[in-house]
């Protein structure tokens, strides 16, 4: 606890670093995951195949392995990420976390899509909407109600998983604060306790925000 008070500015900057990492990863995971879900229900077999393969691979791989792949594997085949504020691991970390989380987002969105009665999409196709319009204007808005709770769990899991990205070498986020403080002589208990509290300061408000969003969607019909 003394670490949290004495080194408060470090915690604040770690807190902001984690927020930034999670914000980018969340945007990436939500966009990619929704796209993959659209692929999985598309009438085009190759797209369905891409969606299914992505989910199978990333949902069944340890996040650490995925991150290693993005940080060290991809550069070997010519995919070079730019640095972020001098940190080479930030973008590979964001990309790896997005790619991994997208698999879970995809499954949450897909189960939401499946909860919408088939007649809704049929009526949309029958009036001449394309596949994309049917999904965007009729199916996804109705899927949203069932998708928000599981999506919330996925996002909170992602925030916690972001610690692995920190352990990995993205300095300036919360988990890396622990390493810095231990090195500066604080006890592990004291510095990790501070880190745990700082994570709760993100995940608990996120949970409250999601509950609010759920209720808001509920009354909007």
């Amino acid at each position, binding site marked *: 606890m003394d670490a949290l008070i004495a080194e408060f500015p470090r915690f604040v900057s770690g807190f902001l670093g984690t927020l930034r990492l999670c914000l980018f990863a969340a945007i990436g995971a939500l966009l990619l995951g929704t796209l993959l879900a659209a692929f999985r229900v598309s*009438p085009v077999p190759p797209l369905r195949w891409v969606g299914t393969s992505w989910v199978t691979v990333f949902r069944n791989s340890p996040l650490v392995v995925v991150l290693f792949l993005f940080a060290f594997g991809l550069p070997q085949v010519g995919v070079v990420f730019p640095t972020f504020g001098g940190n080479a691991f930030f973008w590979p970390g964001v990309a790896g976390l997005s790619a991994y989380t997208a698999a879970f987002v995809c499954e949450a969105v897909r189960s939401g899509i499946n909860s919408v*009665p088939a*007649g*809704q999409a*049929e*009526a*949309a*196709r*029958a*009036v*001449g*909407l*394309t596949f994309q*319009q049917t999904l965007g*204007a*009729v199916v996804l*808005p*109705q899927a949203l109600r069932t998708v928000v709770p599981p999506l919330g769990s996925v996002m909170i899991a992602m925030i916690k998983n972001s610690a692995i990205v920190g352990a990995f070498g993205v300095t300036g986020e919360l988990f890396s604060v622990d390493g810095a403080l231990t090195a500066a002589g604080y006890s592990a208990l004291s510095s990790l306790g501070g880190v745990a509290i700082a994570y709760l300061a993100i995940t608990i408000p996120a949970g409250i925000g999601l509950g609010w969003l759920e209720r808001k969607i509920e009354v909007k*019909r």
Partner: protein
Amino acid sequence: MTEAPMIRMVSVDKHFGELHVLRDINLEVAAGQVVVVLGPSGSGKSTLCRTINRLEPVDSGTIEVDGQRLPEEGKALAGLRADVGMVFQSFNLFAHKTILQNVTLAPMKVRRTSKADAEKAGIALLERVGIANQRDKYPAQLSGGQQQRAAIARALAMKPKVMLFDEPTSALDPEMVNEVLDVMTTLAKEGMTMLVVTHEMGFARRAANRVVFMSDGEIVEDADPEAFFTAPRSDRAKDFLGKILTH
């Protein structure tokens, strides 16, 4: 040049796995004609209806709407479906949209009509089917009869060349059947080309030019309504009429 029929089905076959749902279907519906399709449950009426806008693809044979062969999946098919109105047994109104939004969605998205024009036309259509005062409600707040009339208005908003109805009154309480049939009868009188799956004999007699009787995936009779109801030729039709008349 002779005018192409509005709907033409030639040697259409379809299976669901082992089940042969459509057997060598040949059917033409001329522009302005109203054809009623009837037959026992499971005889393939819904499937027939749904192949015409390719909600169900067929195994073999050709289907043309207004002289144009049904395109494969994609933009062209969406374009064709915009010209073919469809009314479902279970209404299938968009549950998250108001009645007016249900009617304006496709004109705005597909025809690129402006919101103002789409709403003006939409309100006129809702007036025509008698539910303009319900325009800001959501589907779940309407009675079945009102929902089905809204669904008809939604289809008409695309100015379709032909309308398909799949048992439009089967899910309705008896007292609401006539309000929907009245709208359909008016539409028929105005010259809309219609293919209607229904067991409402009153409607068939009043509005239909022909009755098509299906059994086990086949078209067994294709006759004038009066002739069909008073003197069906096939045993299967006699048997079927006996059942629906006695209960």
